[in-house]
């Protein structure tokens, strides 16, 4: 059904690598004629933080109402109660708060290997539709790059931008806009797409 390219110039083949009849090209090849590639989003400015000692040993003493370790609920619980990190207006760099949350997410993901994640990038409504799709893509990539820098296997993370198409807050004020500018780590159990 999919019409695939038969003749590709070397340049476009490497630049695009339209996934041919085989399965997905893995990993995605480097685009060839890159004059200036996007600089990797700002990672960890300081050196790696020390590994935090486990706060508790969940298997031995589960507090009442505490989610089951390794469950989706536990992911949110262990990473500050919200699987989203938030951005400033028209920005895709990660705040200190966002990095802290993502460190916790990475730690959890490194502990529980039975999940992959779709990292969603979202924008507030104050931008044109197509620009916001691009902006959301940059945000999703910032999140993914940081998680990878924290040791999460890149193949477990895919990115998608929803631009301003999927707001979580309908209000048109600073509070609503701030909530809609987010990167959402949407976990999926391995084996489910």
């Amino acid at each position, binding site marked *: 059904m999919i019409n695939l390219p038969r003749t590709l110039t070397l340049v476009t083949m490497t630049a695009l690598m*339209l*996934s041919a009849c085989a399965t997905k090209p893995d990993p995605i090849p480097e685009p060839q004629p890159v004059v200036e590639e996007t*600089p990797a989003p700002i990672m960890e400015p300081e050196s790696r933080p020390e590994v935090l000692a486990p706060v508790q040993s969940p298997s031995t003493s589960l507090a009442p109402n505490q989610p089951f370790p390794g469950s989706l609920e536990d992911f949110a619980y262990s990473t500050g109660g919200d699987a989203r990190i938030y951005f400033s207006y028209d920005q895709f760099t990660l705040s200190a708060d966002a990095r802290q949350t993502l460190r916790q997410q990475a730690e959890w993901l490194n502990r529980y290997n039975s999940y992959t994640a779709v990292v969603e990038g979202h924008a507030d409504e104050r931008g044109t539709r197509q620009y916001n799709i691009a902006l959301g893509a*940059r945000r999703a990539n910032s999140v993914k790059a940081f998680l990878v820098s924290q040791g999460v296997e890149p193949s477990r993370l895919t990115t998608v931008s929803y631009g301003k198409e999927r707001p979580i807050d*309908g209000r048109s004020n600073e509070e609503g806009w701030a909530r809609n500018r987010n990167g959402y780590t949407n976990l999926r159990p391995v084996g489910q797409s």
Partner: protein
Amino acid sequence: MATMIRYFILLMALLGLAVPAASLAQIEVDITEGNVDPVPIAVPNFLGQDPETRALGEQIAEVIRADLESSALFRALDPASFLETQTNIDYEPTFADWRVIKADALASGRIVRDAPGRVRVEFRLWDVFAGTQLQGIRFSTTTSNWRRTAHKASDAIYKALTGEEGYFDSRIVFVDQRGPKTNRQKRLAIMDQDGFNPQYLLGGSDLVISPQFDPNSQTITFMSYETLPPQVYLLNIETGRRELLGSFPGMTFAPRFSPDGRNLVLSMELRGNIDIYTMDLMTRSTERLTTDAGIDVSASFAPDGRRMVFQSDRGGTPQLYTMNADGSSPKRISFGDGRYNQPVWSPRGDKIAFVRQNRGKFSIGIMDPDGRNERILTDDYLVDMPSWSPNGRVIVFTKETRGIDSRAELWSVDMTGRNLKRVETPGQATDPAWSPILD
């Protein structure tokens, strides 16, 4: 003579030119706040041979009156005011009777039965003041096609009186929206330019964005979240055949056809970098046109296909640039205050429409292809996705209101900033794209 002068004024208004003040005084055309007096035109119900053709004649005349009025360049006079009732359109009308009611032009027509299920729609357009026929046209059509025939008649009248191509026999594809702001269902839909005959084009379970017509009005390209990453699709609106353009390694979006329909221009994202590519639709080979680290998006071809306009934040904020169709010679053209987005080259080639974002407001504006003569036509909390009428005179766009109960609507405005009005849609709607004139 007065009529001719009025037509001249009309043409000047169409061209977006300032009418010299001296000429206004001479001919007593009332222009207030940039408003040109619309030309009064009489369109009596078209004559019929029997009840059925008479009913058809009424419907057709009604559509013509509505079309002409919608342009705001004409005022369709109330048939109740007409003094003369013509019984045969092949005889000259009694011009004095039409001058008395201040009609500048008269379009009188009839419906004649043809083969079974077919009719001939004939009309004559008269210059009432000069007492001459401007046009006599006959359409042969199926009875069920009466609405399109009426639009074609409107286009013929528009052209005869303004010298410009019309745009009434055309369609608009858009994204129909249902449900609350935080849980919108979005479906690809199409309708006539006047809002009639709306229909869905796709089932509607997947998020779809930014449909665009090919030059034959047969194929629509759009972005869909049916797959991840989301990709650009093609949809033949006659056969319903849908096709994934290609399985790219990154998200593809913001597609638009070249004027000859042979190529698509689109943006692709790879690891957060967004660049513009073209794809040859026959060979499916692609060419990368931009290589900078910024967001390069929303490309639109000039009507000659040799250049395109796009937006880029390579300079720090989103601004408009033009470049050759092969990506060479990029040149920034927007230098005003604020951020410039979503440029669309007019099908006439003389203007570029855009969305400017400045001081918390969004505006629809136009500028020359070299960036000169920037002019804001309308602004609001949120406007987006301008699309030109096939004659390059009117812009349809999306308007969204503030807040939780935000409504998404289609609006139109002409290139002089006049005639701002809502375009009726069955539900809420965004992302309008105007078709070329239909064949």
